[in-house]
């Protein structure tokens, strides 16, 4: 193999009270896809932020193209040829797609923007990304999460980079979009550009990766493993220090009672139409579909968070018209966007966990912080929250651990029907298995679960019954064991909003 373009030796980075990186080794060669693997909180995002000049290493050594390297600012890193796609979307809502792509290195003459050439260059990049239909001058605000991820990629490609770092780029992408992403990555590596790729999906790593470095608790536990041939058991072992016996708990036969949730003819113009479904106590119902098919909107409308144009939602025979009624009748929802829809970033974890149930702990209007903290700790244990500290602000948690807090919120209190929108987005393999266990446990206790996930195997493995949604319509319903991944994908792929209708 050629000399590495990037080499990290014993890199250390501490935050107040935490050693996020505690001696990391990493070497990346030109033209390879180097995968980083590690549990939530292992330090992957921190590592790439050090490379991007956002954080500064406290110790260790970095060489970039043979020279010592310590970027002081993001600009310095970019100038050196390192472009980054961050885990959290880093776009400006009120700028256009083109302006976002070229933010910070605008095309301009005497300070005046060259709008036409910027737009055409953006269009080129978008076309390269397989999305010539996204209008370059549209505001980013109007894009769904998947569209925003594509703009983030466009920004990275707008730089003349020699190394592109991608932090969980596929978390918000659907199946077909991931294919697209891989095509781009192959193009890049063919030009000798190195890619650092972070993902919790082992299948992706096997498909696109060349070599794998595994992090655990801020330390490199294995380096430069071949991505395709290393056994899963070994990878998971290096990541977690233990082996995962099974991913999905075995399905058990259930005698289902009358449905607890009945949705009839629910419609919101332009989003979804005539959706009818039921969920029985103890039943797990999954909805599969592509990004943009309207699943989140359906879930939010069932929850009462969006007003329906037509149709009814009843829980236990009571009409649900608003979030207040939904929650007080025992419905809970873990929304899709953890930062904007779910978390109080400055508040401690336990207060985030009890956000929907603190009133239940309270006595006469006075909160019971001790009880709340204890309950939150129990949930943290069952979800493997890392670090197991419910007093630190939610902001300082890694992305996957934040997701656990969002789901954990509804494990407290007396939830009887749980709506989960992409509950495992960004959650590592180990914790994912725990989460599946928890969901099964809930179902066994008689809680009804309605689950939306872009990962078809997850829907199939977890749900008792699967609904397939396409372009706002529920087009198919079947018990999970009568479906397989290919069938679902075929049903779902007939048209993706992001790509437009097949002619």
């Amino acid at each position: 193999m050629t000399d590495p373009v990037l080499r990290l030796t014993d890199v250390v980075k501490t935050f107040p009270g935490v050693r996020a990186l505690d001696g990391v080794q990493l070497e990346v060669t030109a033209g390879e896809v180097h995968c980083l693997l590690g549990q939530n909180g292992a330090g992957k995002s921190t590592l790439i932020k050090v490379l991007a000049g956002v954080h500064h290493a406290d110790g260790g050594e970095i060489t970039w193209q043979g020279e010592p390297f310590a970027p002081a600012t993001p600009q310095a890193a970019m100038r050196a040829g390192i472009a980054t796609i961050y885990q959290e979307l880093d776009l400006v809502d009120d700028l256009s797609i083109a302006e976002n792509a070229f933010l910070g290195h605008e095309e301009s003459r005497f300070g005046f923007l060259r709008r036409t050439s910027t737009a055409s260059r953006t269009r080129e990049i978008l076309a390269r990304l397989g999305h010539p239909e996204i209008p370059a001058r549209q505001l980013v605000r109007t894009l769904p999460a998947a569209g925003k991820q594509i703009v983030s990629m466009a920004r990275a490609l707008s730089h003349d980079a020699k190394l592109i770092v991608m932090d969980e780029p596929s978390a918000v992408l659907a199946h077909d979009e991931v294919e697209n992403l891989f095509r781009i990555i192959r193009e890049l590596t063919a030009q000798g550009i190195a890619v650092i790729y972070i993902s919790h999906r082992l299948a992706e790593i096997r498909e696109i990766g060349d070599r794998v470095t595994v992090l655990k608790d801020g330390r490199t536990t294995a380096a430069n493993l071949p991505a395709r041939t290393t056994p899963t058991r070994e990878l998971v072992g290096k990541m977690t220090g233990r082996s995962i016996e099974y991913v999905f708990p075995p399905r058990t036969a259930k005698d289902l009672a009358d449905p607890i949730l009945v949705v009839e003819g629910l419609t919101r113009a332009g989003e979804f139409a005539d959706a009818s479904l039921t969920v029985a106590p103890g039943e797990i119902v999954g909805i599969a579909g592509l990004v943009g098919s309207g699943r989140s909107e359906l879930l939010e409308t069932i929850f009462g968070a969006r007003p329906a144009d037509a149709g009814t939602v009843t829980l236990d025979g009571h009409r649900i018209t608003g979030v207040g009624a939904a929650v007080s009748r025992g419905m809970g929802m873990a929304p899709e966007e953890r930062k904007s829809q779910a978390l109080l970033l400055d508040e401690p974890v336990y207060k985030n966990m009890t956000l929907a149930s603190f009133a239940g702990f309270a006595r006469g209007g006075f909160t019971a912080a001790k009880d709340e903290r204890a309950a939150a700790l129990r949930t943290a244990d069952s979800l493997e929250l890392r670090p197991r500290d419910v007093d630190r602000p939610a902001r300082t948690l890694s992305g996957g651990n934040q997701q656990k807090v969002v789901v954990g919120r509804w494990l407290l209190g007396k939830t009887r029907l749980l709506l989960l929108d992409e509950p495992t987005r960004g959650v590592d393999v180990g914790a994912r298995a725990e989460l599946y266990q928890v969901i099964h446990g809930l179902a066994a206790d008689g809680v009804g679960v309605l689950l939306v996930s872009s990962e078809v195997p997850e829907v199939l493995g977890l749900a008792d019954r699967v609904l397939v949604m396409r372009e706002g319509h529920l087009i198919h319903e079947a018990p999970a064991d009568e479906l397989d991944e290919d069938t679902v994908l075929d049903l779902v792929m007939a048209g993706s909003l992001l790509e437009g209708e097949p002619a």
Partner: protein
Amino acid sequence: MITEAAPPEVRSERRRGIDESVLRNLGLVGVLIILVIIGAATRPDLYSDPTWVKNNIFTILQQASAIGVVTVGMTFVIIGGGIDLSVGAIIALAGVWATTLATQSYGAGGMIFTALVVGLVVGLINGTLISYGRLVPFIATLAMLVSARGLAAQISGKQTQVSANDTINNIATTRLLGIPLLVWMLALVVAAGWVLLNRTTFGRRTVAVGGNPEAARLAGINVKLHTVLLYALSGLCCGIAAIMLTSQATSAQAAMANLYELDAIAAAIIGGTLLSGGRGTIIGALFGVLVFSTITNLFAINNLSTEVQNMVKGGIIVAAVLIQQFRFRSLTHLLKR
């Protein structure tokens, strides 16, 4: 699979979390001490008399009492993600309404009741416009500022209305256990505010509504209703302040409590409340108010002229915040090592 003991980082993390706001407040206490030291250094003649010093403390606290009560309400509104520009105008309207001849004829009880109800109702209107009329808080309460002062002028005929009620007027002179009643009232409101914010579900909702309204809504909190309640609370505080001010001035008029909105917002922010909502402390807000009234006191005993006062005041505010930040940063730095 899971270890029973929390790792050592966890505990130190927690200690730091508490220290953050405490340190901020410590910083403000430091600023207060510095101001007092400057006072003692510049006027040793006054500061050498213990009776005078005791009286001076009471004076500072009494001067801070009405604005302090307003600031408690304002802190809630700001933490809840809003702003209330109408506080001064509400005080004027409540004060003027409580001192019309008609109201005064009902005696002290009637006056107090009127002031509180006026404050509460105006607050409810503010909250309703903002929650259900979807007006930006800045605009809604600015409109209320203008209207309420206009109405106060109309009611009072632009005259200063003298309170002839001794019970009301005596509030400002009465002492309880040697401490002025106004100071007790401030202490009570601050204590109640602290409990409400830190120990009740109402306070928890306030933080949630201000920190991330969408998350609060999806967690089943009635964000709109809660917002209405926050402005009502602020209005109620203004009603209380109106009584305090009316008693101090033994009169009320449409121009009273002018620019209290700026003072209250500034005190809350200096005390560590985020203008964008979701974070704030009642104790910090109290210290913010005390810093301002101590500065005024310092200027008075040194007989500074208005223009010099103003020039210096801006500098002191900047210095106060810098001192506070400096202490905060360097101390956490020390803790880290």
